[in-house]
């Protein structure tokens, strides 16, 4: 398993585009998260009390929700990485050289898990450091009370990447893959949810993946759903991830590479 991941990392560590996306993701999450408390809305009545959002334990919710927006960047990166294999026909060469389709796919999934682990670790460290500076009471329970959001973030980001893997494999070309990845997640699914009742539309792939971590502003205002992110959407996100991986497997085995 480590051998597969090592090979997969060797493919991308000298790839400039990979680093552009990694740096962009890191800087954007850092900048957006850290700059929101600095925003001062005009008028004393409009003053928004951000303090609780940025201290333990709610900081986990705030941070993972914000970082969730930027999963999009990691998704686009995965579309590029998988379509490269088709453009360069290296998927074909990898198999000729001795990998099975299974090993090829496992290597990619391992890479995606690795990417999600790294982005989750980054988010965790950012939350921990920021929280330690911002929170008045620092007790073990206060810090880790709602850290299940960090686990939810990991699953959310992995689910995004699994969808990206599927789209990249389906369309084979980076441009097409990225366009359809964005088109489906940002336009097709939101439009589909209009005529559909909530109990169905809530469980469409992107709805369920994004509802995994609800908007903390709604929640603190008492409009959100239950506080734990480890509910039904958590299970659905894992389910969809498995479906995307399986669909990718079918594409790779049924199609000529």
């Amino acid at each position, binding site marked *: 398993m480590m051998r597969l991941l090592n090979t997969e990392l060797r493919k991308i560590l000298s790839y400039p585009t990979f680093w552009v996306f990694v740096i962009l993701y890191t800087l954007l999450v850092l900048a957006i998260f850290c700059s929101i408390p600095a925003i001062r809305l005009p008028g004393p009545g409009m003053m928004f009390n951000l303090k609780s959002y940025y201290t333990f334990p709610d900081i986990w919710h705030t941070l993972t929700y914000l970082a969730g927006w930027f999963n999009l960047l990691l998704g686009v990166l995965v579309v590029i990485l998988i379509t490269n294999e088709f453009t360069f026909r290296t998927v074909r*060469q990898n198999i000729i050289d001795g990998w099975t389709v299974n090993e090829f796919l496992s290597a990619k999934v391992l890479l995606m898990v690795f990417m999600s682990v790294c982005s989750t670790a980054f988010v965790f460290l950012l939350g921990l450091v920021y929280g330690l500076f911002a929170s008045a009471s620092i007790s073990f329970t206060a810090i880790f009370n709602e850290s299940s959001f960090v686990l939810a973030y990991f699953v959310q980001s992995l689910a995004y990447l699994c969808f990206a893997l599927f789209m990249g494999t389906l369309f084979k070309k980076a441009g097409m893959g990225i366009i359809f990845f964005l088109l489906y997640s940002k336009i097709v699914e939101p439009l589909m949810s209009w005529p559909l009742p909530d109990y169905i539309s809530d469980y469409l792939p992107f709805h369920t993946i994004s509802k995994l971590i609800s908007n903390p502003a709604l929640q603190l205002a008492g409009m959100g759903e239950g506080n734990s992110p480890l509910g039904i959407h958590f299970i659905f996100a894992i389910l969809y991830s498995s479906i995307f991986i399986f669909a990718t497997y079918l594409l790779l085995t049924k199609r000529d590479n």
Partner: protein
Amino acid sequence: MILSIQNLSKQYGTLAALSGVSFSIEKGSVFGILGPNGSGKTTTLGIVLGVINSSGGTYSWFDNKGTGNPRKNIGAILETPNFYHYLSAYKNLQIAADIKGVDYSNIDKILERVNLKDRKDYRFSTFSLGMKQRLSIASALLANPEVLVLDEPTNGLDPQGIAEIRELILSISKQGKTIILASHLLDEVEKVCTHVAVLLKGKIISSGKVSDILGNNDIIELSADNMEKLESVAKAHPAIKSVSKNNSGKLELVFSSPISAAELNEYLFKQGISVSHLLLRKKTLETQFLELIRKEK
């Protein structure tokens, strides 16, 4: 047997890219798959290398003996050199070595063998077509495999490069390795192969030893003032195989055994014919094919 193929077929929609292809390849042979573009050479190799799904038929490597993926004991290039464009030659070979499960100690030696050592840290995208082709041969040789599968290995190479690759193939074959070579160049197959299967429109139209199949492929083109007499005299030659008239009105002679232009000229002169035109040329693959098809019928 190194590779046995039984009744392989491939359907692309209504088009039969391959139909009922069968052949076996013995250990130590240099097996040529000869055919024009689009005859099914790459499809055949793609199927046995596991990247194209067949519509029917079976194949087996090494008589299904041995454990693990047989492809790890095969070095292969299919159609184009396939590498990560943004990685250096060395890193690309590291990835191939990872997949094959061999260490990196061979990489420098192999790169030297294909004359790419100076360029090993350059990106693949900066390579010329010939260099890309040589890198893919290096990649195929990397794990010192039992079998080498080369699909049009001299495509895009200059004459010197072509000669080098052919020498390389012959020297590898001398080490007892088996080589499978797909080519549309009759000349190439004739120079390096021991056995050949001729593919046309997805069917094997002929297969066997190169000397039996491609045998004598000289054509002698003749003309004289008295064409009728020339024709009857030519037909009377003891070693004549066929006489035909080409578009420019000249006679084309094929002999069953090699004959030199001087010998023929002497023979004709003795029969009282002075030729005004005598040209010895190799049969083109096209003519060879036409002949094989005619034989079929």
